[in-house]
């Protein structure tokens, strides 16, 4: 084949191939076109379908969203590391948080701290092990920190094999969990209760199968089996097995009889052979009429039973005791209603117990006036305080009976006040007796007051006349007398001395016992004084034919300071006693100087007699007032019986002791030792014998006698005449002041007790009359007694000297001389401090209060007199109404008023009164104190009214 042929053939094939390829391309292009057309159609369909699908998806999503949002469960999505990405509204409600707050927060923030580890561990494991879904219950912290239990399902969500998120569904199961916990607790408690019950319990089902028994059951019946192993045993067989333990055979037969099942709850006391007592509670168990089984409950009540018996016995015993006592017992409850009345109380009140029960004890039994007091008592009782008080009861018969009530609260076992018991003691007899005693006491007091008055009267009514007799006798003895007249006169003097001594004895003992006696020390010759007294008695003793020995140590013949009056009295009383009781033998007085120094001496005086003596047992009595050694003695020997008593007291006043030794029928020895201070001055002072010497010096004097008693006037005037002293006489203070305005005097003899104006006031007024030339005149007080306060008061009001009645002419002369020799500035007492007020008012208090401002004091007294009666009337009213509280307030208010007017001492009683009122318990005491207080108020008003009148008259 040549080249051209080859090429032609090749070209021919190429052409052919090109045409084939073009045809193929044409076909392919068409194919492409159609494919394209088809594709376009497909595309349009796809868009439609997409729209359709999208819409379907949206609906689906909306539904899904609605479901999520309205779900009752918490639905959430969470990132694998635990942060919320989406959460539904219920979560917001449960946690009370905004969804926006929850989203982005970590789930562990919500978990209860106690469960953190557990929850976290759980989900870590889920993720690690790729467990698709888990369920867990745990508490979370809700609003206000409360625990909310959730039951949570977590599903892992993967995308392309990778964990992208977790979907959660959580349900609030708090109610269920709580219920479960409660149930569990209840179960535990029930179990514990059952285990620890002090009663044996057995529960059987309707097929008699034991479903429950406790330890105690096994213990009681000594069942060897552990109580847990009793379960499923046949209960009735068990009961039959323990049948033999009952004391009463067949005790339970009826209850385990299957033919007639018990439908009622039965309570039964059963005894075991061992002596134990069991209380059986047999309880059939029904639910909705369906019988489900029985509960056997055995309680060991042996101890309780025994103690009940003991209590009953004890109660019977005490009841017996109480009923046999003279005490009426009444028990009331908190409201005061009678809960029990004992026999004795019934007898006391006249009611039967039935009549008293549930009655208001106060209303029924107490008179109206005691009811308020009783209510207060009841209140106090509730606070646990017992009280004792006297009240009257009204018996059923309407009679009143005085009873003493001791009320005490009583309490229940938990210590709560539940009522009171009142123990009543019939005081009617006692009250009667008390009333009688009171009457008797009253009478006795009246008698004593009468005696006192009598003694006081003696002072003025008896002493003054005797004084006059004695004085006149002295005057008469100074005149020209025959021997016979002189002897008669001596007898008058002797007897009037005795009479005066008697009266003085009585007065002195009163004074001594009142502690108002004081030593009045003056110069005296001790030896001489003893001698004079001995000589004075010598006549009487020798007259009886008794030998009388007198020995006085020469060393005693010296001047000492002593109270001659008292020393005389001591010696005369002892010697008089010896003389009185000695019929034969001898009496001796032995005075000895025991010790003598430069300034002091000690004298011992022994008086011995051979008289009747004193029995040993009577010896301690002889110094008692009005007490002679036996009634027989008094009858035989007479006298006041005061002599030795006075002697003893006076010796004691000298800081010494009167000793007595005696043998009955043989005689008695009295002895005492007294210390004296020596006087060194030469005899320039006044002596008893100095009278006549100084008398001449008194001639030129002009004296004013102020004395209301005519006899005394007479006596004093005679003495002054004898001394050649000029005088004028005034019958009282007022007259005296009048005379003093006109005449000039050198001295005033001033009686104290006088009508119109007494000596004190007269003195003060005179001392304050500064322009009166007599204002400085010395004044001698003439006091009726040796009472210290009278003498002191006299000196304090401005008087200078004093004489105690009765006084001898010598004493008058002496005191005048003394006044003339020692002229002293008299004390001037301003009238507004001391004398202007009633002696009962406390001067110091007033002075402190008003500092001399009399007018102010006068105003206050006026106010006192006008306000106190009214205030007191209010107090009286409160007392009547038994309003102790108000009474206390009023009493308290009254108190300072008394101090203001110088009667503060009267209020010492108020404090007691106030205290008693505050307690309000002791009615008797309250009434007594009020009585005293009322007396004081009346007394005070008496004084202050007098004071006011006095002010009105004088200022």
């Amino acid at each position, binding site marked *: 084949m040549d080249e051209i042929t080859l090429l032609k*053939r090749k070209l021919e094939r190429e052409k*052919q191939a090109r045409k084939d390829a073009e045809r*193929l391309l044409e076909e392919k292009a068409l194919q492409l076109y159609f494919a394209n057309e088809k594709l376009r159609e497909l595309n349009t369909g796809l868009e439609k379908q997409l729209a359709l699908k999208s819409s379907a998806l949206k609906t689906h999503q909306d539904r899904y969203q609605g479901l999520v949002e309205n779900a009752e469960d918490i639905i959430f999505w969470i990132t694998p590391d635990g942060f919320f990405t989406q959460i539904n509204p219920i979560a917001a409600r449960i946690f009370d948080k905004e969804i926006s707050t929850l989203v982005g927060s970590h789930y562990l923030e919500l978990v209860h701290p106690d469960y953190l580890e557990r929850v976290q561990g759980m989900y870590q494991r889920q993720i690690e092990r790729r467990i698709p879904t888990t369920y867990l219950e745990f508490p979370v912290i809700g609003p206000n920190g409360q625990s909310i239990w959730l039951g949570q399902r977590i599903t892992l969500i993967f995308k392309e094999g990778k964990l992208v998120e977790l979907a959660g569904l959580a349900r609030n199961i708090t109610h269920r969990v709580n219920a479960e916990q409660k149930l569990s607790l209840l179960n535990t408690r029930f179990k514990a209760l059952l285990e620890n019950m002090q009663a044996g319990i057995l529960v059987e089902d309707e097929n008699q199968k034991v479903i429950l028994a406790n330890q105690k059951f096994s213990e009681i019946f000594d069942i060897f089996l552990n109580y847990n192993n009793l379960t499923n045993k046949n209960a009735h067989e068990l009961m039959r097995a323990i049948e033999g333990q009952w004391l009463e055979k067949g005790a339970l037969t009826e209850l385990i009889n299957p033919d007639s099942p018990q439908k009622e709850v039965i309570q039964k006391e059963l005894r075991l052979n061992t002596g134990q007592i069991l209380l059986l509670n047999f309880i059939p168990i029904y639910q909705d009429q369906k019988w489900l089984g029985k509960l056997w409950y055995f309680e060991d009540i042996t101890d309780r039973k025994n103690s009940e018996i003991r209590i009953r016995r004890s109660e019977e015993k005490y009841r017996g005791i109480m009923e046999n006592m003279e005490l009426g017992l009444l028990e009331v409850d908190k409201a005061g209603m009678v809960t029990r009345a004992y026999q004795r109380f019934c007898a006391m009140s006249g009611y039967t117990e039935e009549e008293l029960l549930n009655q208001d004890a106060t209303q029924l039994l107490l008179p109206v006036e005691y009811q308020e007091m009783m209510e207060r008592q009841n209140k106090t009782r509730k606070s646990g305080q017992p009280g004792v008080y006297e009240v009257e009861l009204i018996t059923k018969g309407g009679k009143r009976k005085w009873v003493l009530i001791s009320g005490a609260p009583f309490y229940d076992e938990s210590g709560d006040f539940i009522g009171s018991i009142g123990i009543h003691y019939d005081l009617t007899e006692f009250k009667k007796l008390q009333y009688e005693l009171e009457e008797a006491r009253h009478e006795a007091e009246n008698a004593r007051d009468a005696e006192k008055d009598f003694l006081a009267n003696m002072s003025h009514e008896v002493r003054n006349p005797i004084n006059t007799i004695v004085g006149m006798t002295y005057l008469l003895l100074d005149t020209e007398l025959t021997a016979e007249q002189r002897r008669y006169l001596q007898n008058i003097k002797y007897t009037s001395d005795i009479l005066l001594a008697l009266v003085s004895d009585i007065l002195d003992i009163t004074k001594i016992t009142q502690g108002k006696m004081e030593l009045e020390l003056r110069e005296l010759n001790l030896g001489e004084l003893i001698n004079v007294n001995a000589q004075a008695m010598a006549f009487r003793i020798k007259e009886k034919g008794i030998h009388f020995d007198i020995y006085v140590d020469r060393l005693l013949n010296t001047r000492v300071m002593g109270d001659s009056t008292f020393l005389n009295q001591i010696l005369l009383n002892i010697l008089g006693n010896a003389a009185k009781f000695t019929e034969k033998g001898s009496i001796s007085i032995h005075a000895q100087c025991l010790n003598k120094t430069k300034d002091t001496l000690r004298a011992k005086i022994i008086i011995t007699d051979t008289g009747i003596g004193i029995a040993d047992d009577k010896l301690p009595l002889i110094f008692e007032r009005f007490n002679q050694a036996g009634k027989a003695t008094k009858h035989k020997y007479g006298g006041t019986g005061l002599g030795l008593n006075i002697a003893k007291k006076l010796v004691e006043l000298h800081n010494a002791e009167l000793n007595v030794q005696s043998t009955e029928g043989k005689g008695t020895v009295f002895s005492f030792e007294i210390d004296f201070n020596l006087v060194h001055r030469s005899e320039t002072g006044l002596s008893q014998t100095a009278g006549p010497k100084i008398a001449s010096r008194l001639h030129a004097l002009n004296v004013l006698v102020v004395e209301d008693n005519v006899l005394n006037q007479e006596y004093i005037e005679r003495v002054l005449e004898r001394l050649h002293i000029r005088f004028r006489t005034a019958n009282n203070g007022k007259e005296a002041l009048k005379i003093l305005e006109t005449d000039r005097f050198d001295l005033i003899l001033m009686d104290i007790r006088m009508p119109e104006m007494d000596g004190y006031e007269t003195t003060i007024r005179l001392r304050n009359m500064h322009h009166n030339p007599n204002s400085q005149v010395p004044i001698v007080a003439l006091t009726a007694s040796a009472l210290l306060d009278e003498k002191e008061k006299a000196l304090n009001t401005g008087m200078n000297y004093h004489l105690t009645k009765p006084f001898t002419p010598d004493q008058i002369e002496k005191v005048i001389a003394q006044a003339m020799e020692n002229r002293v500035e008299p004390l001037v007492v301003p009238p507004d401090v001391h004398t202007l007020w009633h002696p009962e008012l406390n001067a110091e208090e007033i002075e402190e209060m008003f500092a001399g401002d009399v007018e102010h004091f006068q105003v206050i007294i006026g106010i006192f007199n006008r306000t106190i009666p009214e205030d007191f009337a209010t107090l009286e009213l409160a007392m009547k109404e038994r309003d102790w509280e108000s009474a206390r307030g009023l009493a308290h208010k009254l108190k300072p008023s008394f101090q203001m007017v110088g009667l503060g001492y009267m209020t010492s009683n108020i404090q007691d009164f106030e205290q008693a009122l505050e307690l309000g318990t002791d009615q008797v005491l309250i009434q007594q104190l009020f009585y005293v207080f009322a007396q004081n108020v009346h007394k005070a008003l008496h004084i202050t009214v007098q004071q006011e009148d006095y002010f009105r008259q004088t200022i």
Partner: protein
Amino acid sequence: MKGIIFTHFFEMVETEFGDETVEILIDSTETSTKGVYTSAGNYPPQDIFNLVTSLSQISQLPQAALYRHFGKYLFAGLYSNYSIFPPKALKNSFSFLDSLNDYIHSDVYKLYPDAELPHFSTQYRDEQKMVLVYQSNRRMSDLAFGLIEGCLAHFGEKASIEVEFLKEDGSEVLFTIKLNSGEN
């Protein structure tokens, strides 16, 4: 059978045996198109069998050798024509062969839905050794052998290839390819 196989076959005959052999082959072989083929066309597979049988008679070379040679030639041609198909990541013969079915042939089908391609499946593969199973009703394992050789040559690799007929008719053949280590 795709026209490209025929165009490459004639190219090979033209190159290896000359233009005159091409004319003789066309004249002496019964074909559906009298030797006219375009690469985009599709032709009966009998044409290639007849052509190879004729060429074996003309050239006095065994058919298997002709197929193997043609396979080698074809690989290079196909690779240059269709280099878009194999993924760029394929860096050696084993990964290329491994991806034949899943990647290369699947793409070929997209372009030529009527193409009938052999099926290659990897039974074993490691660094040095690969076991391939060839399946095709056309029973052209020799061509496949040549293609594998072409592939190895393309990646510059040398290997020993063992062939084992899993079916007697040659429709299923096992290729065990062992790389010659040390030379790579």
